[in-house]
């Protein structure tokens, strides 16, 4: 389907996925100004059927899933006993006794093992076997879905979802995504994915986008990527995502997370030039090495290099740092450390 659409294919998390179609910059800017679609069917989807009195599922997530209102989804984490992040997850409350957790493709086996070893009373359904996901992102997403499928999304709020009939099949759509802008994620049965993809591309406002643009879009929005900003050596507090942890309920990793002070601090960077910070480059304040970059790219919206990294916890955060690949002959890249909100605003995203 994607090779037919002109995609250049790469391997990611054991899947063959399109890296780009028309070029990362074009796809990125198209998503910011119009509407782009991403095939994200590779993501792991598990449905849980919970026994009424059982708390075991709730213990796995950093938010209290029982408090999720019906028709809503929430971003949160699965933590190990040390408070390190096993994966970041979006949990959908499908009904009082049914939840769906959507997580990363590359960590699927690890996460599945975690569920299986911790859930004794809960039925676990591997929904990937029948359910795909297409993300439609950009300011015109709702207009496109309305015009193509006569569905009204105007009443759907951010991080809410609802069931709709698409191509004579029930699908559910959530107002969510990974680009920092307006957009939706469509969950649909596998038999209908290709038909939906092609129907969307019939609209001139829609263009396909690949993993390359997905990465530059999420970086501009200051959103973390598992394996880069998040891993088992990192806590949600260190990643600056403490607001997705609810200490008023019990969950695995809670005590250590509460007691142990963070060891590092996440920072967002913008380069003085078009040259970009890159994964594994070191961060210097003057001559002192204070941290490292976890993600970086050229920002098509800002037209400068941007990045995310970690610095030591016990220092005052400098305004200006230099980044170095530490290879012979490579110069240093001067960057400003800015609050996440400022990065998001610089990218033209109102948040």
């Amino acid at each position, binding site marked *: 389907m994607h090779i037919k659409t002109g995609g250049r294919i790469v391997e990611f998390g054991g899947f063959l996925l399109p890296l780009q179609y028309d070029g*990362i910059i074009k796809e990125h800017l198209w998503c910011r100004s119009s509407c782009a679609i991403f095939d994200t069917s590779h993501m792991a989807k598990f449905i849980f059927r919970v026994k009424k009195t059982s708390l075991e599922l709730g213990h796995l997530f950093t938010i209290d899933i029982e408090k999720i209102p019906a028709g809503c989804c929430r971003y949160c984490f699965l933590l190990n006993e040390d408070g390190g992040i096993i994966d970041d997850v979006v949990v959908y409350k499908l009904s009082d006794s049914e939840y769906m957790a959507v997580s990363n493709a590359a960590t699927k086996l690890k996460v599945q093992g975690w569920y299986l070893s911790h859930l004794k009373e809960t039925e676990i359904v591997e929904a990937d076997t029948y359910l795909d996901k297409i993300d439609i992102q950009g300011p015109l997403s709702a207009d496109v879905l309305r015009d193509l499928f006569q569905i009204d999304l105007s009443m759907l709020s951010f991080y809410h979802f609802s069931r709709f009939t698409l191509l004579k099949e029930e699908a559910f759509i959530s107002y969510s995504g990974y680009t920092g802008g307006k957009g939706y994620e469509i969950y649909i049965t596998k038999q209908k994915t290709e038909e939906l993809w092609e129907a969307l591309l019939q609209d001139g406002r829609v263009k396909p986008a690949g993993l390359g643009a997905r990465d530059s879009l999420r970086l501009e929005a200051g959103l973390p990527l598992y394996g880069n900003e998040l891993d088992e050596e990192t806590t949600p507090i260190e990643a600056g995502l403490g607001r997705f942890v609810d200490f008023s309920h019990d969950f695995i990793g809670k005590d250590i997370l509460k007691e142990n002070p963070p060891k590092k601090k996440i920072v967002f960077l913008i380069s003085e030039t*078009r040259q970009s910070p*890159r994964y594994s480059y070191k961060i210097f304040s003057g001559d002192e090495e204070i941290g490292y970059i976890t993600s970086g*790219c*050229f920002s098509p919206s800002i037209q400068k290099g941007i990045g995310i990294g970690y610095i030591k916890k016990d220092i005052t955060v400098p305004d200006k740092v230099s980044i170095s690949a530490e290879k012979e002959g490579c110069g240093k890249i001067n960057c400003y450390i800015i609050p996440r909100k400022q990065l998001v605003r610089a990218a033209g995203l109102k948040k």
Partner: protein
Amino acid sequence: MEVREELFYTKEHEWVKVEGNKGTIGITEYATHTLGDITFVELPSIETKLSQFTRLGTVESVKAASDIFSPVSGKVISVNEKVVQNPEILNSSPYDDGWLVVVEMDSLEEIKNLMTVQQYREYIKNL
């Protein structure tokens, strides 16, 4: 993928055009196509001494930074400031407007270490 008859090539996808003792250096269309949209170019300054197959500069795309290696040894006598200002020229015209530097070559002997167009065409066919 376009290749040019009159050029010599490296395995890292640089080309050199030899005229007298002057060598004009660039990167191939295979390289620019693989990198995608080029967003930044770093080049050496005039008078810099380059050695064959050592680092000449950097090209960056949205997703990655890659080193460029010099196909020949010599002293840089001219730098293409236009590609530094407008790196996308490398995507649109890798063999003409997208040249990077001109060097005064130390030795024409080094060309023996490079691929001819036929060899390079075979080489990229098998990548």
